[in-house]
C-alpha cells in the first residue's frame, strides 16, 4: 500500500513536467506579441518594450524561459503578472471562488444525480423513468452556455428569483445558479450511470440469493443493489471534481465570477505565459490528486481491488 502510494506520487512528477512544458509551448506559439499588445493603440516604445521583455524573460529562447519558470516555481516564486501583481496572489484570489463553485456543483450533481438515477433504475420502464431519462438526455445534449444563458435570463433577469451575476467574493446565493448550471451535465451523466448500474445489478444472482434469505425488499435494495451500483458512480464523481474545476470557465464567463476560469481566459488573451502555466499546473495537480483519491476509494469500496 505504502509502496503503491509512493509510486503514484512519483508518477505525478513527469505528469506535471510534461503538462507545464506543453502549456508553455502552446502559449509561446500563440500569435501576436504580448508586449506590443500592452501599448494598446499607442506606438510601441522600443526601449520600454525591451525592458519589459528582459524583466519577464521574454527576450530569451523558449526553452530557457521554461527552465527559468521551473526554477522559480520550485521556490514558489511564480513571478508577477504584466499588471505587476504577484501571480501567487492572483491565484490566491481566484482559486477559492472556483473551488467553492465546483464543490457546490459537485454536491448538487451528486445528490440529485444519484437520487434521480435510483428512482429511474428501480422503476425501469415506468413513467417516472421515462421522464427522468428524457430530461437527462436534454441536459446532456444542450451545451452549458445555452442552459446558463436561459437560466440567467429567466431566473435572474425576468423573475428576479436569484442574482443574475455574481460579483467579487460571491456568497452561497450568488453561486447557486452557476453551480446548478455547472453541475447539470454531469448530473445527467450520473443519472444515466446510476440507472444502468442499478438495472444490471437488480438481476444479479446474489440479489436473488438475498431475497431467498427472506430479506425485505428495502434491505435487499439498500444492501445489495445500491451498495454495488454506487461503486462506479463514486469513481465517476471523484474524477468529476477535476473536470468541474476546468469546466467552470464557461460558467464563470456567463455569470461574471472572478474565479480561475475567468482569470485563465484573460491571461490567455494577454499572452501571459507565466500566469497561464501556473494556473494550469495547479489544475493538473488537482486532477492527479483527485484520480489518486478515486483509486484509493475504489479499493475501499470494492474489496476485490488491492494495491500492492
Amino acid at each position, binding site marked *: 500500500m505504502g509502496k503503491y502510494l509512493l509510486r503514484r506520487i512519483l508518477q505525478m512528477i513527469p505528469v506535471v513536467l510534461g503538462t507545464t512544458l506543453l502549456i508553455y509551448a502552446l502559449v509561446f506559439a500563440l500569435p501576436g506579441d504580448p508586449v506590443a499588445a500592452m501599448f494598446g493603440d499607442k506606438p510601441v516604445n522600443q526601449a520600454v518594450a525591451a525592458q519589459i521583455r528582459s524583466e519577464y524573460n521574454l527576450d530569451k529562447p523558449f526553452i530557457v524561459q521554461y527552465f527559468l519558470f521551473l526554477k522559480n516555481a520550485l521556490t514558489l516564486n511564480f513571478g508577477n503578472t504584466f499588471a505587476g501583481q504577484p501571480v501567487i496572489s492572483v491565484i490566491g484570489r481566484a482559486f477559492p471562488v472556483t473551488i467553492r463553485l465546483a464543490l457546490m456543483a459537485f454536491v448538487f450533481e451528486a445528490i440529485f444525480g444519484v437520487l434521480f438515477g435510483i428512482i429511474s433504475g428501480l422503476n425501469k420502464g415506468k413513467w417516472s423513468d421515462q421522464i427522468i431519462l428524457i430530461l437527462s438526455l436534454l441536459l446532456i445534449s444542450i451545451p452549458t452556455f445555452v442552459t446558463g444563458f436561459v437560466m440567467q435570463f429567466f431566473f435572474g433577469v425576468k423573475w428576479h428569483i436569484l442574482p443574475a451575476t455574481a460579483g467579487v467574493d460571491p456568497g452561497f446565493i450568488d453561486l447557486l445558479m452557476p453551480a446548478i448550471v455547472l453541475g447539470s451535465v454531469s448530473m445527467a451523466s450520473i443519472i444515466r450511470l446510476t440507472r444502468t448500474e442499478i438495472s444490471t445489478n437488480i438481476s444479479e444472482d446474489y440479489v436473488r440469493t438475498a431475497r431467498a434469505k*427472506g430479506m425485505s425488499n428495502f434491505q435487499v435494495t439498500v444492501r445489495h443493489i445500491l451498495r454495488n451500483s454506487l461503486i462506479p458512480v463514486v469513481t465517476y464523481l471523484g474524477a468529476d471534481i477535476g473536470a468541474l474545476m476546468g469546466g467552470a470557465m464557461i460558467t464563470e464567463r456567463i455569470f461574471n465570477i472572478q474565479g480561475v476560469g475567468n482569470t485563465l481566459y484573460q491571461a490567455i488573451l494577454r499572452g501571459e505565459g507565466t500566469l497561464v502555466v501556473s494556473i494550469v499546473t495547479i489544475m493538473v495537480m488537482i486532477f492527479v490528486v483527485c484520480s489518486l483519491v478515486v483509486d484509493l476509494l475504489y479499493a475501499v469500496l470494492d474489496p476485490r481491488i488491492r494495491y500492492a
Partner: protein
Amino acid sequence: MSEQTQVESLQAQLAEKQIANGPLLEVKDLKVDFRADGRDVHAVRDASFNVYPGQWVAIVGESGSGKSTSAMSVLGLLPGTGKVVGGSIKLHGKELAGLNSKEYEQIRGQQIGLVPQDPMSNLNPVWRIGTQVKEALVANHMDVSREKRSQLAKMLASSEDVTLKSQDDELFIASTDLPGLLDAAREAVVKAGKADPAKAMESFHKEWEPGSETRWGVAKGLIRAGVSDDEAWAIAKQYVKGSDMNDRIAGLLAEAGLPDAATRARQYPHEFSGGMRQRALIAIGLASRPDLLIADEPTSALDVTVQKKILDHLQGLTDSLGTAVLFITHDLGLAAERAQHIVVMYKGQVVESGPSLEVLQHPQHPYTKRLVNAAPSLASQRIISAKAHGHDAEKYMEHQVKGEQVLEKSEHIISVEHLTREFKLPRKKEMFKAVDDVSFSIKRGTTLAIVGESGSGKSTVANMVLHLLKPSSGKVIYEGKDTAGFSSREMLDFRRHVQPVFQNPYGSLDPMYSIYRSIEEPLRIHGIGNKNTRRARVKELLEMVEMPSSVMGRYPNELSGGQRQRIAIARAMALNPDVIICDEAVSALDVLVQDQVLQLLNDLQAEQGLSYLFITHDLAVVRQIADEVVVMQHGKLVEHATTDQVFDHPQQQYTRDLLEAIPGGKLSLGID
C-alpha cells in the same frame, strides 16, 4: 438395539409420520408463463409433485425443461417476466401462489431456503461471508443463542439416547465458554475413568463447535465418554449458556463444512474457492432452519470430487436437521443416488415420477429412457455391470476401444516429454509448478484423456501442446519433430493440423461473427480455396456435425450451447486436422447434448482417423470415449494406463477417489 434395526425403525417411523402429516410441499397443476416479444411462452405446464417432510426429491431434466422455473415459482422468485398463471403451490397446506411480496418474505428463508446453482455469482462480492450469513439470521429474527429444531428433527433426536428436557437444552456453546468447558470435560472424563481421555478429548474438540453444538449434544457426548448423567448435565448447564451472533455465524459455516470458520467468516467471497463458496451458500440456505431446502444444481459448477464431498455433507446435514430437499439436476445418476423420489421434466411438463430406483430401472417415458441412456455416470455403471455379468460391454460404449495390440502398433502422432511449466506467484519467491515433468504420447487414430481436478494442470498441458503457452522445459513432438524448433511455416502447418475445441461454447465463438464467418475463418486465414469452394466446404462441415446449412447466416447467441459446441467442432474440422484437443469440451453441456457431442466426436474419429487429446474432470465421460487415460494431480502425472486398466484396476488412491466420485457408482442397474 443394533444400529441396523435402529435405522430401520427410524425409517419406518419417518414414513409413518410422512403419511400421517401429508406432504410438506404440494405442487399441483402448476402453470408458469414468460412473456417474450408480446407473446406468452409456456415454461411450465400442469406440473404436479409432492415433497414430504425430511425427503429428498429430485427434479431431473435438460436445460429449458422447466425444472428450475418450477423450483423458483415455489420460492416466488421467478426471473423477469415469469408468472404463475395457474395451479397451486401449498406449503404445510397453505397456498403460496398469489401471496404478495411482504407475505412471501415471511416464507423465504424461514420456511424455504435456497442453495443456488452458481457459487461464483451468488455471493455479493462486496460483503464479507459472515455478513452475508448474518443477513439471513437477522432477516428472519433468528435467536442465535439456541437451535431451532423442526418437529421432525425433534422426533429424530428423541430416538437417540438423550431426550430433550427443556428449551434451554438447545442453547449453543459460546466461543468464550469453550476453554472452560473443555477443561471441565477433561476432569470429568478422567474422574469417570471409563474412556480413554485423550481420545474423548479429541472428539470433543472436533464436535464441540461454538455456535453449532448444543447443551444436550455436550451432555450426550460426556455421557458417552462415561461421565454420569447428573454430572454430565451439570457441566453442560454450567458451561453451555448460549452463543452470540459471531459464534452462530461461525457455527453455521462449520456445519456446512468450512474449516476454521471464525476466520473464514471475516473473508470476502473472492478469497474463497468455488467449493468453499458453495459451502457458505449452504450455510446461508440452512441458516434459518427451513423445512424445505431448494438446491438448484448446487454442484454442477464444481469438480466431481468436490461435488461428492459437498453433497455428502449436505445430505448428512439435512438428514440431521430433518430438512426436506428439492434437488434440481440434469444428471439422472446423481438424482437417483441422492433422492428417494425422482420427478422427470421435459418441455415444461412432468413426464414421469416415482421412487428413484423404479424410475432408473424401469423408465416408462421415452424421454426418461433417453436420459437413462445418456447419463455418463450410468453408462459407465452399465459397462461395469455388463462385464460383471459376462455380457458384451461394448454396446454400452460410445466408442470401440482399441485393443492393446492396436495401441502398441500405432505410431505416435504427438508426444510430450518431461513437460514442465512454472509460474511466478505474486509476493512469493518460489516458483509454482503448474505442470511437473509430464510425459505421454497420443497414438494416431486414438483418444487419450487427461483427467484431474481443477488446478491439476491438465489445461496447462493442453495449452502447451497447442503451443499457446511455452513450456519452462520439456518438449512437444509432433510427427517426430520437436515443435520448439519449428519455422514459422512449419508452425502454420502445425496449427492447421492440431485444432482446439474449448470448454465454453459461449466464449469461444465471436458473437459478432455469423456462423458462416466463424467456420470459414480458418479456411480464409490459411488461404484455402476461393469464395465458392469455401462456401461448399462450410456446408459440408455443417452437414458433418449434423447442423442444417440454414444456420450459416445466424449468430452464436441464437444457438443453444450444444449447437454452439457443434459449430466449434465444425470450425476445428475445417482444415482437416489430424489432432483435436478438447479442453473440457462437453463439461458445460447437458447430459443429452453431451451424449450427442461425444457420439459425434466418435463418428468423426471412425470416419477420418482423427486423434483426440481429451481434457476432462469427469471420469464417467472418459470411460465412454478414451483409449488411454492419464491421471494428473497437483501438476504431476500419477497414473497412465489404458481405460480398462484404470477403471478395473486403479493403481493410485487418487484415481480411486476420482472413480468413487462418479455419481451413481453404488446404484444397481437393471440391464434390459
